[in-house]
């Protein structure tokens, strides 16, 4: 039965992917990409990767959709000109052949995966008790492969630096996004008043259960980030000016605490990012709690883009 539903999901996934590649109108392609992200969430669930499903639900279905819809709307005027540059039939055929070849190679490889499947699950199961957390994914992210998570947090920070560096000189230090006119009776304002309190609670809940069940800081931070963005989009609050000190402190707080605790581990436990015996759980909780606001702010800043208006001093 489950394979029947997987078949349906696979077909639908490919149909939507095909739609986003071949349809003429970019907005239509993006509109197809959003349900595609939601469908991917279903695929992760069928593949029993619940933590990944949660991440996809938050990022793929929520934030990426908003990012692309906004870009497609703004870039709409350039579309006709770009369409004229579509390469000729020969190149299209060559590209099709190359892509088909890649597909076949990957498919053949995947049908001949080694038996039995190599797995690290027994190793994780053996050592998970030393971390004090119950969710193996959290144990991997914050203990066994903590260096990956640290580098990811830093990579996201570089992403924000990259986005900010796109600001025009005259706008540097200013606010991202255009000035908005708020109509207090708008239904969007109502939504932005009702949903965020609930959303923030759900975000913190998902962060909190991450220790023992699917969930964690990335997913929780994304939900919180989306709530803040909703408030900004409704016009109730403006995006913060990028020169604000508190903003920058929150941005680096998570990675900084991560590095400090990692260095402390080098002294107390003999290796960078090693946790002293019996202290693993509290350290993990501290790192996760520090990363949560940093990640939320990082995601918000990535989505709102570079500053577009100079800061007005009042």
């Amino acid at each position, binding site marked *: 039965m489950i394979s029947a539903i997987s078949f349906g999901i696979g077909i639908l996934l490919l149909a939507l992917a095909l739609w986003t590649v071949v349809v003429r109108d970019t907005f239509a392609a993006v509109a197809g990409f959003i349900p595609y992200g939601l469908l991917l969430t279903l695929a992760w669930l069928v593949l029993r990767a619940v933590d990944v499903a949660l991440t996809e639900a938050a990022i793929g279905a929520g934030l990426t959709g908003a990012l692309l819809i906004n870009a497609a709307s703004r870039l709409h005027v350039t579309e006709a000109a770009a369409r004229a540059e579509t390469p000729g039939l020969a190149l299209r055929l060559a590209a099709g052949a190359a892509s088909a070849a890649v597909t076949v190679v990957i498919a053949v490889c995947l049908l001949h995966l080694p038996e039995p499947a190599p797995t690290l699950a027994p190793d994780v199961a053996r050592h998970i008790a030393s971390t004090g957390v119950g969710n193996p994914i959290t144990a991997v992210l914050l203990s066994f492969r903590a260096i990956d998570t640290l580098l990811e947090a830093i990579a996201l920070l570089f992403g924000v630096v990259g986005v900010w560096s796109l600001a025009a000189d005259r706008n540097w230090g200013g606010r991202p996004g255009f000035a908005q006119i708020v109509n207090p009776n708008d*239904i*969007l304002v*109502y*939504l932005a008043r*009702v*949903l965020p309190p609930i959303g923030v609670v759900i975000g913190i809940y998902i962060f909190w259960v991450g220790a023992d069940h699917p969930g964690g800081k990335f997913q929780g931070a994304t939900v919180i980030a989306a709530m803040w963005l909703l408030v900004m989009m409704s016009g109730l609050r403006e995006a913060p000016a990028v020169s604000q000190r508190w903003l920058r402190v929150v941005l680096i707080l998570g990675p900084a605490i991560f590095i400090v605790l990692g260095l402390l581990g080098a002294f107390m436990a003999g290796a960078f990012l090693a946790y002293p015996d019996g202290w693993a759980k509290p350290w993990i909780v501290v790192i996760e709690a520090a990363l949560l606001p940093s990640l939320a702010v990082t995601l918000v800043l990535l989505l709102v883009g570079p500053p577009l208006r100079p800061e007005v001093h009042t």
Partner: protein
Amino acid sequence: MKTAADVFTIVAMLAGIFFFVAGTVGLLRFPDTYTRLHALTKADNLGLGLVVLGLLPQAGHLVVALKLIVVWLLVMLTSADVSQLIARAARRQETRP
């Protein structure tokens, strides 16, 4: 007792499917954006509500059941608002010269 719960689930699910079918038929048959939006947000929400209702007896835990209900309430809240927003956006597009 177990069978009574299962029967309840199946009945609720069938009713839920009915509304999903109705919503899709509406999407296919209705002539303009507003009526399609109406079909989508009303029928599908009721469908989801009935599916949630059917899942309640299958939820192993009271907390899970409560969360299921919260999911439905949240979807109702957001989709009611979003349908209004989309309808207004469609109207703005229409009245533009």
